[in-house]
C-alpha cells in the first residue's frame, strides 16, 4: 500500500491541518440533520480525507467495509454503460464523468436507487444514505440540471456529498443547494511536517533539506508530496540532500511541446502540437492544468514586451475553456495565437538588426 493511503487520517481527531474546520465539520454531523455538501479545493488538499472522516463520524466504523461493484446502465438510446462504484452499507461513491456525456443517466439512476431503498438496518445511526459524487466540475450541464432536480426530490432519505476542484463549472443552482466547504491546500511547512512524521512511522530517515525540496516540487499537493517521497525512496535510499527529484512525465511532455512552439511557428508545428494535445487530453490530464503548465513554460521563454499580450490572450482562452466543452478548440486557438504573437515579435527583432 502506498504511503499516502496507509497513513490517511480516518477520523477528525487525526487530521494534521485545518483543525478548526475539522471541529466545525464534526459539529455539523452531531445533529440529526445534515445538508448536502459540496467540498472543493485544489488537488491533494485533503477533500476526500475529510469526506471519509465525515462518513465515519456519521455512521461509525461500519462505513469502512467497502465493496467495489461495476454497475450497468442503459441509456435511453439503448447503449450499455458500465461504471465502477465503491459502496458500503451506508454510502455509495461514484465518478459519473467516467461515462462522458451519459453522466446524466448514471446520476439519475444511482440516486434513485439509493433513495428509493430505505435504510434497512434498524440500528443505523442515520435515516439517510449518502451518495458521493466525485469530479462534479466535469459533469455536463445536462447532468447538473438533472442532479438539481433529484437533489430536491430525494432529500428525505439521501444526502449528496460532492467533490470538485473548483466550483466555477458547477451551476449556481447546485452550489446554492449545498453547504460549500473549501479545503485549501496545505502550506509547505505543513507538508514538510507531515512528510517527516510519516517517514518516522515508516522508519525512514528523511533529511530536512530533501523534505523541503519535495514539498516545493509537490506544488502544495500533499498526496503528490507523499508520492514523490516514496518514488525518491525507490530510486535512491538512503536519501541524500541533493537527490534528483523525478519530474512528472506529462510535465516534461508539455515542456517539450512548448519547446516546439518556440522553435518554429508554422502550420506543421500547429498540427504537431494538436496531436500532443490530443494525447494529453485522452490520458485525462485536465485541460486547465495543461493550459497552466504550457503558459508558464511559454512565458518563461518569451520577452517581457509580449508577456502582457500573451497573458491577456491566455486569460481569454482559459475563460472559454471553462465555459465550453470542446477543450481542444480553445487550447489550439491559444497556441496559434501565441505563435502569431511570438513570430511578429521575432520578426520585429530581426528587422532591427
Amino acid at each position: 500500500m502506498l504511503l499516502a493511503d496507509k497513513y490517511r487520517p480516518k477520523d477528525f481527531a487525526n487530521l494534521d491541518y485545518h483543525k478548526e474546520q475539522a471541529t466545525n465539520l464534526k459539529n455539523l454531523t452531531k445533529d440529526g440533520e445534515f445538508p448536502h455538501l459540496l467540498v472543493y479545493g485544489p488537488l491533494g488538499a485533503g477533500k476526500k480525507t475529510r469526506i471519509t472522516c465525515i462518513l465515519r463520524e456519521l455512521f461509525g466504523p461500519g462505513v469502512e467495509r467497502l465493496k467495489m461493484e461495476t454497475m450497468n446502465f442503459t441509456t435511453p438510446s439503448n447503449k450499455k454503460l458500465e461504471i465502477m462504484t465503491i459502496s458500503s452499507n451506508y454510502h455509495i461513491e461514484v465518478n459519473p464523468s467516467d461515462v462522458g456525456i451519459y453522466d446524466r443517466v448514471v446520476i439519475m439512476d444511482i440516486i434513485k436507487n439509493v433513495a428509493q431503498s430505505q435504510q434497512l438496518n434498524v440500528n443505523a445511526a442515520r435515516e439517510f444514505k449518502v451518495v458521493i459524487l466525485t469530479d462534479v466540475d466535469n459533469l455536463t450541464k445536462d447532468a447538473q440540471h438533472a442532479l438539481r432536480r433529484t437533489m430536491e426530490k430525494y432529500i428525505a432519505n439521501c444526502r449528496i456529498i460532492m467533490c470538485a476542484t473548483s466550483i466555477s463549472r458547477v451551476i449556481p443552482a447546485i452550489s446554492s443547494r449545498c453547504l460549500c466547504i473549501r479545503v485549501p491546500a496545505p502550506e509547505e511547512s505543513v507538508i514538510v511536517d507531515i512528510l517527516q512524521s510519516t517517514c518516522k512511522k515508516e522508519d525512514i530517515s528523511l533529511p530536512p533539506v530533501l523534505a523541503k525540496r519535495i514539498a516545493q516540487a509537490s506544488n502544495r499537493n500533499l498526496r503528490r508530496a507523499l508520492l514523490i517521497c516514496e518514488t525518491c525512496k525507490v530510486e535512491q535510499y538512503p536519501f541524500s540532500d541533493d537527490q534528483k527529484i523525478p519530474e512528472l512525465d506529462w510535465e516534461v511532455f508539455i515542456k517539450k511541446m512548448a519547446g516546439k512552439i518556440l522553435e518554429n511557428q508554422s502550420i506543421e508545428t500547429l498540427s504537431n502540437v494538436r496531436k500532443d494535445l490530443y494525447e494529453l487530453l485522452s490520458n485525462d490530464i485536465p485541460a486547465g492544468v495543461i493550459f497552466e503548465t504550457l503558459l508558464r513554460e511559454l512565458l518563461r521563454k518569451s520577452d517581457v514586451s509580449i508577456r502582457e499580450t500573451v497573458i491577456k490572450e491566455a486569460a481569454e482562452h482559459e475563460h472559454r475553456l471553462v465555459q465550453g466543452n470542446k477543450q481542444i478548440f480553445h487550447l489550439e486557438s491559444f497556441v496559434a495565437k501565441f505563435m502569431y504573437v511570438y513570430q511578429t515579435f521575432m520578426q520585429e527583432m530581426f528587422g532591427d538588426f
Partner: protein
Amino acid sequence: MNRTKKFKQWESFDFGPATSTEKSKPRKDDSNVTKRKQYVKPNSSTSNKALNFHKELAPVAVSDLAVHPKKIEEVENWLKFAVFQDKSKTAKFLLLTGPTGSGKTATLSVLCKTLGISITEWITPIDQEYEYNRTNQIEQFSEFLFDAKYPSLFESSLNRLTLVEDFPNAVIRNPEQFCEILESCRYINQPIAFICTEAHNANVNLQRTLFPDEVLLKFNINHISFNSCAARQLKLALKRAEALVKSNPDVLKQPSSTVIDAILASADGDIRNAMNQFHMASLLGSGDLPTVKISTEEEKPGKRKRSKDSVKLDVMNKDQSLGLFHGLGRVLQPKRKQLGNSWRLVKNVGSLVDEFSIQPQMFMSFLFENYPKYFGDITDAAKAANILSSSVLLLDNWDRHESLEFALWNSILGLMVVNEHKVSKWNQIRGPVRIVKKDTNKIQEEWNGVRYSPMDQYYHNIIKKSDRCHKFE
C-alpha cells in the same frame, strides 16, 4: 386486386400525371397573369395531343434509354438470370438506386418489355380501402409479395417480376418489420425488384433505412446504383424530343437553342426534369422560358464555367443539396472575386449555413480537424483558430436555435474570409478525432478502489515498478 397495377400500357417515363398545359406553364410574376389568360384557350384545345408528348418520347428500345450502357447491361443480366435461368426455389432480389430522373424505372420497364417479362407493381392503397379490409398496410404488403408467385388470370406470360417502388409508410417507419417481410418471402420463387430514389437527406433516404449493408448481405440483394444522366445522354434525349417537335408543328414549336442550353444546364442530370422543361418550352402558346444569366455573383455550377454566358432556367432553381465534403471544400477553399481594391466571396454564405444548420456540431468538428492544411500562414491560422474557438463556445452554450446559426455563420464566414495565404492542393479530408478516454475501471480495481489522479500516475509506475499507466514519451 386493386392495388396491383398492370404494366401493359406502362408509360416508361414515369412523369407522374401528365402535366396539363396550364399547370406546366412557367410561373411568372403576377404582372403576367393577364397575358397568360390569352393563351389558355388555344392550348386547352390541343391538350389531348399534348398529353401524348411524354408517351411519344418514352423509350421503347434499349437504345433510347439515357442510361449508361454498362448499367443497362447489369440490369439485363440480372433479369435474365433471375427470371429465366435461376431455377432455385428462393427469391431473387434486386435493388436499384439513383437520383431522381436517372432512368431507373425506365430501364427496368424497357428491359422487361423487350425480354417479355410482365411487371406487377405494388401501389400503396389509399386509406379508405384498408378500413374495409380491416388489415393493416404491412399485412397487405407482405401478402402482396407473397401472392406474387401466383400468375395473374389476365396475364399469359409466365415470366413475371414484382416491383416495389412505392414503399408503404408503415414499412419506412419500421425497418425491422421490412426485414421480417423480406425474410418471409425469401422462399418464394419469384424475382422482386425494389427501386429507391437517392436522397441527400438521411431521413428520406430509403436506401439507408430499409437496405443497410447487412440487409443487402443477408438476403443476397443485388444492388445496382444508377448515376444521374450524363450531359451527353441528356442532349441525345432532347434531340429525340426535337425530332418529335418537328413532326408535330401544329401543336409544338421549336424552343430556341439558348433555352435548350438552359434546360440542359439546370436539369442537373435529371432527365424527367429536362423533358418536362422541354415540353413546357415547346408549347405553342408559351414564350421563351425566363432564364437567368449565371453571373459570377450567383451560384455557378463548376462544370459550366467555360461558357461565360451560360444561362439557367429561372423557374427551375432546384434546391441543391451539398454533400458534407462539398460544403467543407467551399468553406476551406473559398473562391474570391476581385473588385478594384477589395474583393468579394463568390459563394453565397447563407445557403452554406442553411445547409449545415441541422448538425452544426458535426460540421464544426470537421472544419476544425481539417482547416490547418488549407492555411499557409500562421497569422491567418491564428485568426481562424480564434474564430473556431469562439464559435464552438457559442455552440456549447446555445439556448436558442439562432445561436447555433450564429455559431455557424461565425465559423463559416470567418474561415472563408481570413485565409489570405491559401494552400491550394489536394488534401484528404479527415474525420474529427474522438478523444477516447482510457478505461479507468480496471486500474481502479487493481488498486483496491482508490482512484489516483492521472497526473500522479507517473509516480505509481515508478513505485510499483510497473507500466500499468500511460507514459508520455
